[in-house]
């Protein structure tokens, strides 16, 4: 692959779940964030709210309606036309098969028509690399805490593309725990951010929940028991508004504390001095504050994406795609998606 091509912008397309994300990024190795030319997003949250969760068929239908208008919007924002593109990146998995296929097909067809390479991106690699879009981007080796709607993982990143999973969730993902707990407390779908907002009104010490799996060695997580603790506490309480906020806070503290304990362990085990946080739960204010504080105490640096790039977005896909395209990687003409896809099986990106 001639690198000439990658002075040209890469189009990134994300359609793995319930947001349609599009971005344009010119690959600038020293400061990837400076190369971000445009990004647009459409969230389907309202569409799925009436159903109490994401309906895969409806998600796919919405992606097909929204994707092209978003691509046009991003191109206009960057002052570009399709002919200016040097490559197209799309989320190839993991995610909902029908939703993935919409983005993959449109992306692959655009690349085919333009005669430029296309690359399928691993959604979690996208999340993991999102902090590179900020000033002072982290360089490997580092440990990444990936906490999103479908994942809770600690990953040792020796180099971009060289990932070893140190710990994983045994049941609910961190974001899923936020969402399910919010539902138990009667908060509207999707509950995570609402629960975090409610916790802001809680009083410290009114309730306390155990930190799951922190009393034994290892880096795996389990959040489903915490949910049950919350349910019991709520059912046995006076169910006043203040009580609800108190429980929300105690839940948030338990999750954040658990994540913090495991992050410290992972840094100790690997000897890494840098901690990267990514995924939707990375938008949680308490988590950001507590991890930053622990970094100052222990002497490790923390790296977070901006809030908009914690949850799903096109920018992280454009970035991960640009890195791999610049390394000469690309896909053949078959439109392929991988609803389940192990992060550890990715090839190195250089």
């Amino acid at each position, binding site marked *: 692959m001639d690198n000439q091509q990658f002075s040209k912008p890469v189009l990134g397309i994300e359609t793995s779940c319930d947001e349609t994300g599009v971005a344009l990024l010119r690959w600038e190795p020293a400061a990837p964030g400076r190369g971000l030319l445009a990004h647009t997003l459409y969230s389907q949250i309202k569409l799925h709210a009436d159903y109490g969760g994401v309906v895969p068929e409806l998600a796919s239908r919405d992606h097909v309606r929204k994707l092209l208008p978003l691509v046009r919007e991003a191109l206009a924002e960057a002052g570009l036309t399709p002919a200016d593109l040097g490559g197209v990146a799309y989320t190839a998995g993991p995610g909902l098969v029908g939703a993935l296929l919409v983005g993959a097909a449109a992306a692959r*067809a655009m690349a085919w028509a333009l005669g430029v390479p296309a690359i399928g991106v691993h959604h979690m690699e996208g999340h993991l690399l999102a902090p590179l879009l900020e000033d002072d981007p982290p360089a490997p080796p580092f440990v990444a805490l990936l906490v999103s709607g479908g994942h809770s993982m600690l990953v040792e990143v020796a180099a971009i593309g060289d990932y070893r999973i140190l710990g994983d969730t045994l049941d609910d993902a961190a974001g899923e725990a936020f969402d399910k707990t919010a539902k138990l407390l009667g908060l509207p779908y999707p509950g995570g951010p609402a629960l975090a907002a409610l916790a802001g009104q809680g009083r410290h010490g009114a309730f306390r929940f155990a930190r799951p799996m922190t009393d034994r060695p290892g880096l795996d997580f389990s959040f489903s028991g915490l949910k049950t603790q919350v349910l019991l506490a709520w059912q046995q309480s006076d169910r006043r508004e203040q009580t609800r906020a108190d429980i929300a806070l105690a839940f948030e503290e338990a999750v954040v504390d658990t994540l913090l304990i495991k992050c410290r362990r992972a840094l100790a085990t690997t000897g890494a001095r840098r901690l990267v946080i990514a995924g939707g739960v990375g938008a949680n204010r308490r988590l950001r504050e507590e991890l930053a504080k622990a970094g100052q105490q222990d002497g490790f640096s923390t790296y977070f994406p901006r809030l908009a790039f914690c949850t799903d977005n096109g920018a992280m896909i454009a970035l991960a795609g640009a890195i791999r395209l610049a390394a000469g990687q690309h896909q053949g*003409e078959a439109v392929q998606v991988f609803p389940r896809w192990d992060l550890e099986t990715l090839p190195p990106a250089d």
Partner: protein
Amino acid sequence: MNLLAIETSTEACSVALVHGEEVIARSELAPRRHAELVLPMADALLAEAGVGRHALDAIAVGRGPGAFTGVRLGVALAQGMALALDVPVVPVSSLAALALEAPREDAAILAVIDARMGEVYAACYRRGDDGTLQPLDTERVCAPEALVLPAAEAWQVVGSGWAAYAEILRERLGVEPLAADGACYPQARHVAELAVREFRAGRALPPEQALPVYLRDKVALTLVERGKA
């Protein structure tokens, strides 16, 4: 004109290229392999005709009804190509394309696709004096038992709905069809044929307006409908 047509809404995956007066096509019965096949088929056709991608004037697509995923695959591919090439998309009914598989000139056509869940996608057509396809009703999804058909003296039936529901459909028709084929599928060469007329009539669309037609639009129950809210 040069027009590329894609049809992936049923078990058959096909691509056709209109190049001047000529139509060439590739087609394969390949359930679940459509996503792999379309672009290589398109490449083969363009190479055979010696047409460059940038010489295409429009992209046509069978926009359904059919299998949801297949319909979306075709539409997303067509949209992506057309946006990149800055050309319009001509969406065509997959039932109309299927109807063009009917062999006879002298009988009304029932195009009927097995829609699973005990239903069919169906529409009726006849051949006009000029050879064009004319709709006799509007496309719909329903139980085969509930199909209401327009009056016609003679019938022919095409599509997987016949394979699944021949007995019931015979009853609905009230006569033995002059021809019936349950193993034929919408083909890109017919999508292309219909699309050329549409294109010439000025009915091509900006790619973002070329959208799937599923017919089956109720695919999940809301919390209220499930009595959970």
